[in-house]
């Protein structure tokens, strides 16, 4: 765990160096912890802080004070905006809460209803499909990053900016644009397919294609972040390894599999954790690109969309809170599983 964190720090550290201003959006909270860097300062080593006690020097107490001052704003924000809502959600999930507040304790009734809710399990299945498809984006990002880091390639900055553009675009706007692209009658995609003699479909309202059409947009949206992080990781691989491999007669593809991939595996792991969490929380694209009147809605509705429906449309906030907690448990479980499996394939140098 600690090793992973350090690597995440390294990855984002070098991102900051190569692409100023383009720090990955998914790593906000880390900016507040004191960065250990390569030569950890005094604050970076928890062991040296010791326990506050009588024997502590004046300087250390001073350090401790300032550490607290720096941590406090973040901690406060975290407690108010993250921790407290989680606790509230847990409490609400044991109640039947009215649309205007006022609740009644119902024990585990919401959870009992939840396990018999066929629709909810359907949305869970959809969400898992989304997640699997989202993971397919990672190899794509890897290949693009590897190609972009080719020695002597011109215009890397431009490509990087182009791939990163969707990341800084509003998902709602992206959803609207893609909706018109996917349109069955007047969409650009079907027009292009028509040129080569393929008859397209109503991509977003055909139950067989809708989920994959939306997941593809999801991949397109997150590709930028992934590429930038992979690029940074690839640039951090020591050059002498490649030189040695070249001397031993390894080609570029062999170098990728035997040097690049193992060397950047911590970044791959980091990205896959982020991608899975993001996919399990898919909502905005569903909200914008489909909807209850869409015949493909039962095939695309995610668990978070169902949470929104129950809590904010049908006014069953207690039940919605129970769904939210199930989502939390699933995400924690899947992430824990990933951390367990990573020992088998992630190499820390």
């Amino acid at each position, binding site marked *: 765990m600690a090793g992973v964190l350090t690597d995440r720090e390294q990855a984002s550290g070098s991102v900051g160096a190569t692409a100023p201003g383009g720090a990955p959006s998914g790593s906000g909270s880390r900016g507040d912890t004191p960065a250990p860097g390569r030569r950890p300062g005094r604050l970076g080593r928890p062991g040296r802080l010791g326990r506050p006690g009588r024997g502590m020097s004046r300087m250390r107490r001073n350090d401790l004070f300032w550490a607290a001052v720096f941590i406090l704003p973040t901690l406060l924000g975290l407690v108010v905006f993250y921790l407290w809502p989680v606790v509230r959600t847990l409490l609400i999930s044991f109640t039947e809460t009215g649309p*205007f*507040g006022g609740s009644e304790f119902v024990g585990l009734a919401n959870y009992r209803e939840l396990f018999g809710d066929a629709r909810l399990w359907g949305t869970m299945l959809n969400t898992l499909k989304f997640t699997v498809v989202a993971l397919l984006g990672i190899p794509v990002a890897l290949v693009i990053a590897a190609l972009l880091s080719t020695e002597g390639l011109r215009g890397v900055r431009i490509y990087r900016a182009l791939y990163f553009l969707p990341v800084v675009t509003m998902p709602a706007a992206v959803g609207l644009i893609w909706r018109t692209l*996917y*349109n*069955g009658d007047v969409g650009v995609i079907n027009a292009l397919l028509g040129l080569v003699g393929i008859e397209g479909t109503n991509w977003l*309202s055909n139950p067989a294609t809708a989920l994959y059409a939306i997941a593809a947009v999801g991949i397109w949206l997150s590709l930028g972040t992934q590429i930038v992080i992979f690029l940074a990781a690839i640039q951090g691989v020591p050059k002498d390894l490649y030189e040695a491999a070249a001397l031993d007669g390894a080609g570029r593809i062999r170098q990728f599999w035997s040097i690049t991939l193992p060397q950047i595996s911590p970044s791959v792991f980091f990205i896959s954790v982020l991608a899975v969490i993001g996919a399990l929380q898919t909502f905005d694209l569903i909200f914008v690109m489909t909807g209850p*009147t869409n*015949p493909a809605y039962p095939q695309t509705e995610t668990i978070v969309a169902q949470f929104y429906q129950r809590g904010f*449309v049908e*006014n069953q906030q207690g039940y919605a809170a129970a769904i939210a907690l199930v989502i939390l448990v699933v995400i924690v479980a899947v992430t824990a599983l990933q951390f367990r499996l990573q020992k088998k394939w992630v190499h820390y140098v």
Partner: protein
Amino acid sequence: MRRTSTLAATAVLTPLLVLGLAACGQSTGGATADAQPESGPVTISYGIWDKNQMPAMQKIADEFHAANPNVTVKIQVTPFKQYFTTLQTAAAGGGAPDVFWMNGPNVKLYAANQQLLPLDQTISRAKLDLAKYPEALVDLYTYDGKRYGIPKDFDTIGVWYNKGLFDAKKLAYPKDDWTWADFQSAARALTDKTKGVYGAAAPVEDQAGFYDTIPSAGGQVIDAAGTKSGFDSPEALQGIEFWTSLVKDGASPTVQQMTDTSPGDMFKAGKVAMYWNGSWAAVEYNGVPELKDAVNVAPVPAGPKGQVSVIHGLGNVIYAKTKHQDAAQKFVGFLGGERAAQIQADAGAVIPAYEGTQEAWVKAMPQFNLKAYVDEVATAVPYPASKNTKAWTTLQTDLLTKVWNGEVDAATGLKDLATQMNAALAKEK
């Protein structure tokens, strides 16, 4: 140094004290039955969702202020998509606007949860005559025998048609007394596959769709008490098949096509010849130069039980926890009067609910047969609603989409819908 800290303490404490006092004032205000007139100027907020109606609403607020110099009305516009989510959160936190717009699907939810002020006092103080508004609308805003909203405007449903597409097939335009059979045969005759033109659009649409055809067939969506579903009746089946047969015969685009491109857009693009739409559409079509003289409107066609449109309208309501009950009551009284209705009619955006002021709206766009909308009021049925309307309209959309799409046959789908809807209604109690 000492001075500044004292100052700082005062600065922090004063608002707290004021807040505390305000809280006291609020609790005593809620306890008294009569609204106490306040001395000194007050500002009340008025929550609305339609930006297009802002000029008319501002004019009403200004005239009200001129007559009541002590009360200033501040209008807050929230787009409809967020309006009810925002309002609900604000109401739960005790901070909803003093006066706001309400609609049919939501009024009973708010009334049953004590978020709205009963308006008996408002009505008697402003001497409002409820007979001046369409009865179906007064009923829509009545819960448990009490009035909670004063009808502001109304909308009924009509059939818009593209004159050019009728001319191309040498068909006569719909007459005011046309029937279901006329509509169905026209829809099929107007369909032209080679040009990608459909005779009608039959989307999974309630208000401008099966909420009209089910009562036209003699059925109902929900019983008058709002406790039992009417979807499992043979009449409801007739009202639904009116639409699904159009899709089946290819006289309407498929559900998938209408999901990708809204049927309203297809109508505006001349790809759909007849499109059911509310009276609110008149302003929109009037504003598009290519449509202004190319389309017109007819009343809904008569079904087995005659010509029946659903009527819906907004109501002005008062927040139960308002701190300015007296001013809010005066303002809602003014909003319910003839003068406010006249201002709305002149603006042309909506049909005012007040009797006799509709003429100005009809005349505002003379090229359209807008009288059709106003005449429908006589036989119109109220918008189906219950305490938690959205719980079953969700089921309605889910299950009827399957029926439209042919996944489930209509009779089975409707029976399922009625069963699930009754279960949802049973939970409301």
